[in-house]
């Protein structure tokens, strides 16, 4: 050891040991920060958790206030939503159907196109093409939703009215489709991640058995990546449920309880936008209804996220 060090010293004219000692001394200030950092980070973490709990508590107490005025059963089974006027009724079903229908339409667009894009990128595209397209997808995912809403209202709806004469100027179909387009990059990108992390040895194993590219993809790669793929679907769904701007702009505010997608419908999110914008007097039933709807929305997305977590843990095929 000695010999080696000496040899180095004569070569470089540096005394490495001395240099290290010197650095150690100047580090003593650093050691102090090192000590306080954990406590600091802990405080920050606690603050963010407390904030979340605070929000949930507010939601909960105001929701309870609402259910004191409107029986919970009436709220969840009511098909009539007339929040204004003397004979206001609060049934959430029109909003629930609006939300669910727009989400279903969106997923009809986003799942197949997103998955096929992912398959193309991961299995068929050359390395070069993939490296160019993937960032492009991620840029698409960053377009503000108001742009999509505008696009749905001023472009997609008029376009669709050429083919579907009965389509209302505001309707749930067009924002649903556009929401799907908006979600494609997310589904594609997450599914692609899942598929490219399937080891190549698995593709080789299948190909060596005489499987075609398509058979390798559908019967080996997709099943092996299924947990990531399903999680991307569920995250897409929860994104669609929470989406606000597009439906607010392009679907109007009719509180129709209907399954006709050419009609205007309101989603939970759009209702919250409308009522908030309309200056609901604090303490009124209308005001509390905001919280009840928000709570329902929150539970919806929470359940979706839990499902996504469950899937990525349970359905995983280990390799």
């Amino acid at each position, binding site marked *: 050891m000695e010999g080696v060090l000496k040899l180095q010293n004569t070569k470089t004219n540096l005394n490495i040991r001395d240099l290290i000692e010197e650095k150690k001394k100047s580090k003593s200030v650093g050691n102090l920060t090192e000590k306080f950092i954990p406590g600091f980070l802990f405080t920050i973490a606690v603050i963010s958790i407390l904030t979340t709990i605070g929000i949930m508590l507010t939601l909960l107490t105001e929701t309870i206030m609402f259910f004191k005025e409107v029986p919970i059963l009436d709220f969840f089974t009511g098909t009539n939503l007339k929040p204004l006027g003397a004979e206001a009724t609060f049934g959430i079903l029109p909003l629930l159907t609006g939300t669910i229908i727009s989400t279903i339409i969106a997923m009809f667009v986003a799942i197949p196109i997103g998955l096929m894009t992912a398959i193309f990128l991961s299995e068929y595209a*050359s390395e070069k093409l993939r490296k160019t397209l993937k960032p492009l997808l991620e840029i698409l995912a960053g377009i503000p939703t108001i742009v999509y809403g505008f696009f749905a209202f001023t472009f997609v709806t008029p376009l669709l009215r050429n083919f579907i004469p009965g389509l209302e100027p505001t309707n749930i179909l067009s924002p649903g489709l556009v929401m799907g387009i908006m979600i494609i990059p997310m589904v594609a990108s997450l599914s692609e991640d899942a598929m490219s992390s399937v*080891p190549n*040895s*698995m593709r*080789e*194993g*299948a*190909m*060596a*058995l*005489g*499987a*075609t590219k398509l*058979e390798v993809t559908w*019967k*080996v790669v997709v*099943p*092996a990546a299924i947990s990531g793929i399903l999680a991307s679907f569920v995250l897409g769904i929860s994104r669609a449920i929470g989406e606000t701007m597009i439906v607010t702009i392009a679907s109007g505010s009719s509180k129709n309880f209907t399954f006709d997608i050419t009609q205007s419908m309101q989603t939970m999110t759009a209702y919250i936008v409308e009522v908030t914008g309309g200056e609901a007097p604090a303490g009124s039933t209308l005001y509390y209804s905001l919280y009840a709807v928000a709570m329902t929305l929150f539970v919806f997305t929470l359940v979706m996220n839990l499902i996504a977590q469950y899937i990525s843990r349970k359905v995983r*095929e*280990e*390799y």
Partner: protein
Amino acid sequence: MEVFTEKKNVKGIQSDGESKKDASKKSIVYDTKDLNLWYGEDQALKNINLSVYENEVTAIIGPSGCGKSTYIKTLNRMVEMVPIVRISGEILYREKNILNKSYKVEDLRTRVGMVFQKPNPFPKSIYENIAYGPKIHGIRSKKVLDEIVEESLKGAAIWDEVKDRLNENAYGLSGGQQQRLCIARCLAIEPDVILMDEPTSALDPISTSKIESLIQELKKNYSIIIVTHNMQQAARISDKTAFFLNGEVIEYENTNKIFSNPSDKRTEDYITGRFG
């Protein structure tokens, strides 16, 4: 060179089991003629000429980087997965040139199975791993599949170990079991030839010897080409051995000849451990 005296008598093994053709003169399965292969500008295989015979174990030995894997992957055209590969020459499999563009590569791979260096079962159940091949080739009947699964697992000498857990994930098996599962997966589509690229290099000695004796069994019905960096293994299990060096075949001979009396100095240096 009398190190490998425990080696079995090659000529003796040939006669047991009913061979598909005339026992005295074996037919050629693979005939490689003037094969050259480049990765971009780097030539990995140089003028390979080599004939592989039916129902024999043909070993390919040589130092690492000499082109063994490249050669064996050319035999089922898996090497084409590397986009920069260029190939010239001919490889006749059962008298047809597989390098012809019109040769359907899926057909080739249905007849020529492959076992890889690292066991690569699918992340599915043991049953599904075996049934995968037959299924993609159109076999749907549950009864037939059940039978194929059992026969293949028996053929790969792993049936007794897994028969009670066919629906469990293949990744719960040990490395040696996984490799025999991969061999069973090959057998399930009744190949003609089985290519093996260092199938035991990731395994412990006991698993290795199980697979070696399995190969001895298998050669009654299949032709086997095995890459190995383990010379004792080549000496123990193969009938013929090809010694590769820098992309060339230096010597290709009966195994007992090559290990007892190699004609090339470089072969002798390699098998006596002087390099590689």
